[in-house]
């Protein structure tokens, strides 16, 4: 990896971390509403995978998507504006935290129904195969908890039967809300589930961004060369609650602390210094730059307006289609006009 690329990767992880910490604060202030699922602790996965994803590779994930949005290349300003529900958000303030996407970057979203995007990933890959985009791999991210729902099994089976180029990636952060993997899954290693579908599979560690990067690059090449699906289980940990306001009765603080010592940013920082790619001072400067980017993103998002009320009915359909009922208040507003 070029030095610059190594440092950008570091900065990207720090931006994700700082942006989410800021989002948590803004949530407490009531500026962000709904659910807010933080990715803190898992950054090495989005950063590592995105650093080897090719532009033609489609990416799709679940609702824990801020890290993915930034790693995919969405401007932190557009991410922050979406969190605040503003018109300059990547989904124009319609989606919020759970529904970030930028299809120009081949990032197909943030999906909030557990497992529902898994069959979609099979369809994305089908679209590429069908249209002769032979070089493309679809990368589908999902949590450990979502491997217990039917969608997952139907999607995996189909991808194998149709030999679709999908890299299935389980981010095993060891909990689906408050439920540990062993309380919800019949097999303790998620990768074993691929066995039932005759699919190549592997479990790797997810706190070291360089390791993630290397392993994923290898598997992507394999899929590109040989075709067909592959399942990777990546071990990780979420440091924060499932969403905001999680009482976290299901795990003890010592466990969280133990994993915090495996901080992906700390590990990578150490790697960069030990391999003389950067100095502590140089990295501190990058930390400052990241913080500044987050400050600017926040400012931008605050200044961005709410979507105009007149746009409420935009994008329900592509074709001009009458809105049958605008709701009581709006119907009467238009009568007055």
């Amino acid at each position, binding site marked *: 990896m070029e030095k610059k690329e190594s440092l950008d990767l570091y900065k990207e992880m720090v931006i994700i971390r700082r942006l989410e910490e800021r989002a948590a604060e803004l949530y407490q202030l009531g500026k962000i509403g709904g659910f807010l699922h933080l990715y803190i602790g898992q950054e090495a996965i989005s950063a590592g995978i995105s650093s080897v994803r090719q532009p033609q590779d489609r990416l799709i994930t679940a609702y824990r998507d801020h890290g993915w949005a930034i790693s995919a290349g969405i401007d932190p300003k557009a991410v922050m504006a979406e969190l605040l*529900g503003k018109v300059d958000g990547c989904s124009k303030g*319609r989606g919020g935290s759970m529904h970030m996407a930028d299809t120009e970057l081949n990032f197909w979203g943030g999906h909030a*129904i557990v497992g529902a995007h898994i069959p979609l990933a099979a369809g994305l890959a089908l679209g590429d195969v069908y249209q002769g985009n032979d070089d493309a791999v679809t990368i589908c991210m999902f949590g450990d908890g979502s491997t217990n729902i*039917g*969608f997952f099994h139907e999607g995996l089976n189909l991808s194998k039967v149709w030999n679709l180029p999908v890299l299935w990636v389980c981010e095993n952060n060891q909990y689906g809300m408050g*439920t540990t993997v062993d309380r*919800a899954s019949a097999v303790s290693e998620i990768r074993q589930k691929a066995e039932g579908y005759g699919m190549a599979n592997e479990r790797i560690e997810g706190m070291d961004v360089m390791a993630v990067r290397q392993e994923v690059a290898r598997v992507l090449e394999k899929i590109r060369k040989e075709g067909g699906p592959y399942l990777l289980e990546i071990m990780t940990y979420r440091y924060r609650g499932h969403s905001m306001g999680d009482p976290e009765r299901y795990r003890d603080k010592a466990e969280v602390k133990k994993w915090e010592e495996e901080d992906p940013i700390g590990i990578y920082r150490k790697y960069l210094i030990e391999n003389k790619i950067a100095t502590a001072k140089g990295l501190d400067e990058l930390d400052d730059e990241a913080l500044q980017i987050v400050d600017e993103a926040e400012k931008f998002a605050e200044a961005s307006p709410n979507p105009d009320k007149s746009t409420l*009915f935009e994008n329900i359909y592509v074709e001009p289609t009458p809105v049958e009922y605008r*709701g009581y*208040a709006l119907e009467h507003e238009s009568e007055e006009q």
Partner: protein
Amino acid sequence: MTRMTMREAISKALWEEMERDERVFIQGEEVGVWGGTYAVTKGFYDHFGEKRVRDTPIAEAAIVGSAIGAAMTGLRPVAELMTINFAFVAMDHIVNEAAKLHYMFGGQFTLPLVIRAVSGGGRQLGATHSQSPDVIFAHFPGLKVVSPGTPADAKGLLKSAIRSEDPVLFIENATLYQMKGEVPDDEDYLEPLGKSKVQREGDDVTIVAYSKMVPAALKAADMLAEDGINAEVVDLRSLRPLDMDPVIASFKRTNRAVIVEEGWRSYGVGAEVSARIYELAFDYVDAPVKRVAQAEVPLPYNAELEQLALPQTEDIYHAAKEVLNG
């Protein structure tokens, strides 16, 4: 009587029924160790144990499907769906199994099961997590659909649902969990399923509502009272069976009605209730029935737009004024 929140009333109903009948048990996502995502089953796991408070994988089809199977053996499961939006994952089991098996096999066995689910919008959860699709489930004969608008009804109706021999979908509204009211302490306090109830008496206009729209309708009635208008508020409480008697009795006095629902208007509760008013009391109609409902758009995340799309108390007030002037 004890003053408590709707959350406490629902929790109490579950607790009492589990104490009363060994066959009653709970299953669903995060109902145990977590204590329920909306804290309805807090303390249950420690008290009743993991046999009767069963944390499930994220697998709605299996949650409902296995509850149906267990009910077929004579148990009385209460299956919790974290929100009604996830009921679509379990749709086949709700529609093709729960609603039909008793009939289809000539009544050989019963399905005494309750499915609890949280409905409603207004919390910036985005399009997939904010729906009020209650009426969809009321389309299917064989399923009972209940949704309370007061803490007392929540307790009495849930207890009846658990004791019912039929499958019941019990719909709660997250924004009502904090609502307070007087709730009877009696452990055999039951409210009948399939009975509408007058929540406020009045002779000038009939406002029909259920669930979250009941407190909204009562507030609108207060606003109308300041204008010297006496609104009667009829709470449907149950979408199937639908009890039109109190609605018709009221309408025959007021000759004017507004029907309110949180969900979309097309093919909705307002459509059904107004059609029945025209069928049952056409001669008493003094003004076209009005419907207040959600704007027909998937709910956006942005708070301003979301509130713009949702039916508001003021809308009910204005609609009532209009039917009175019409």
